[in-house]
């Protein structure tokens, strides 16, 4: 067994052990803490699978933001929820059902098709005209741009869904904690030190995404994280959700994406195609706008429903 192989085996064992823990642990809180570590390990697994773009996304979203959301929820629900479980019979039936699915999936994994089918050559062959160097970005913004556009609408709807749960009297109010009279010393220090660095990282990630792993989503997540740190450190209030500017920032990325897509009708081969020679600059414009929108949207989603009205 080679070194790398031993590492993979250990990683998989750890992942499975944590997953079992997450499912059976008594307290929700510890299950979530362990789940965050799990997310980071999954990100390493993605690196081992040569999918660095996915690894970045998984670390940022799957572990980071999701973990934060769940931790916040567990803290607020603390003590209210007993780890309830359904009856033994149902559990046995469910266990058999799930084992069957796992076995089925495992069987498929163990019997790969004789001829491996892959779109990698096609994706690479068509990449040069777009000027991009990262084939994943090529898939996201050239071949399957339509998926990416709709996915941004999904994200927007998630925000709308979160906002829709606001009690009527707080509609148009401010989510997140209030600015403290005396901001928390340590956290405030972090919130002053980190954002300048974080913003540089976010810009770099977006910019480099055209040719190397990275891109709008990863950059946007870093932006969101910086914003959230500033807000929970009590340095700045979140904006109220009825502000035009906030809503504009949420929408600007998808809107520019849609606009450039529409321009394709007149200037290129139709919806979401780019005029020859202009693909890369246009994609970068879209990515920059999307980074901003994703950052603001993710931040707002993580902050949740408004908690109080703006002071007049």
């Amino acid at each position, binding site marked *: 067994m080679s070194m790398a192989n031993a590492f993979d085996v250990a990683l998989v064992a750890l992942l499975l052990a944590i997953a079992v823990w997450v499912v059976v642990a008594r307290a929700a809180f510890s299950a979530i803490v362990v789940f965050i570590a799990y997310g980071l390990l999954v990100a390493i697994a993605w690196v081992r699978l040569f999918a660095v773009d996915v690894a970045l996304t998984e670390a940022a979203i799957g572990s980071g933001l999701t973990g934060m959301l769940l931790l916040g929820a567990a803290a607020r629900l603390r003590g209210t929820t007993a780890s309830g479980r359904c009856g033994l019979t149902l559990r046995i039936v469910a266990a058999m059902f799930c084992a069957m699915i796992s076995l089925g999936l495992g069987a498929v994994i163990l019997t790969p098709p004789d001829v491996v089918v892959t779109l990698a050559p096609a994706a690479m062959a068509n990449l040069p005209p777009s000027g991009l160097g990262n084939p994943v970005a090529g898939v996201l913004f050239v071949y399957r741009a339509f998926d990416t556009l709709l996915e941004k609408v999904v994200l927007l709807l998630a925000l709308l869904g979160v906002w829709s749960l606001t009690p009527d009297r707080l509609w148009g109010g401010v989510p997140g904690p209030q600015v403290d009279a005396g901001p928390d010393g*340590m*956290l405030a*220090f*972090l919130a002053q*030190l*980190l954002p300048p660095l974080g913003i540089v990282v976010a810009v770099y990630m977006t910019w480099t995404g055209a040719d190397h792993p990275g891109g709008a989503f990863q950059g946007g997540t870093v932006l969101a994280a910086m914003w959230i740190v500033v807000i929970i450190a009590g340095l700045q209030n979140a904006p109220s959700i009825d502000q035009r500017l906030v809503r504009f920032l949420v929408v600007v990325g998808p809107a520019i994406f849609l606009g450039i897509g529409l321009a394709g009708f007149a200037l290129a081969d139709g919806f979401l195609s780019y005029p020859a020679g202009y693909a890369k600059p246009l994609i970068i414009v879209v990515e920059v706008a999307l980074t901003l929108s994703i950052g603001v949207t993710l931040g707002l989603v993580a902050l949740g429903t408004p908690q109080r009205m703006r002071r007049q």
Partner: protein
Amino acid sequence: MRLALDIFTALAVAGGAFFFLAGTVGLLRFRDTLTRLHALTKADNLGLGLVTLGLLPLVAWPLGALKLISVWLFVQLSGAIATQLIARLVRREDPQA
């Protein structure tokens, strides 16, 4: 020269691993939150510091080295702040500690 550097790497990484082990044992064995934090920061500071130091000769100069050092710095920063926050929470909930 090569051999000396390799030995240095092996020693430093092994040292780092030892501190990680010690920190983890401390995390599991110590009684209260504050002493556990103490054990944990040792792993972070010394353990990761030694591993970083040991790996420096192996990476490209200067970009790789800069990356490694900034990894260490970021962990220092987040570790220090997280520790502070946890310690403060402990103090607030149990002023006797």
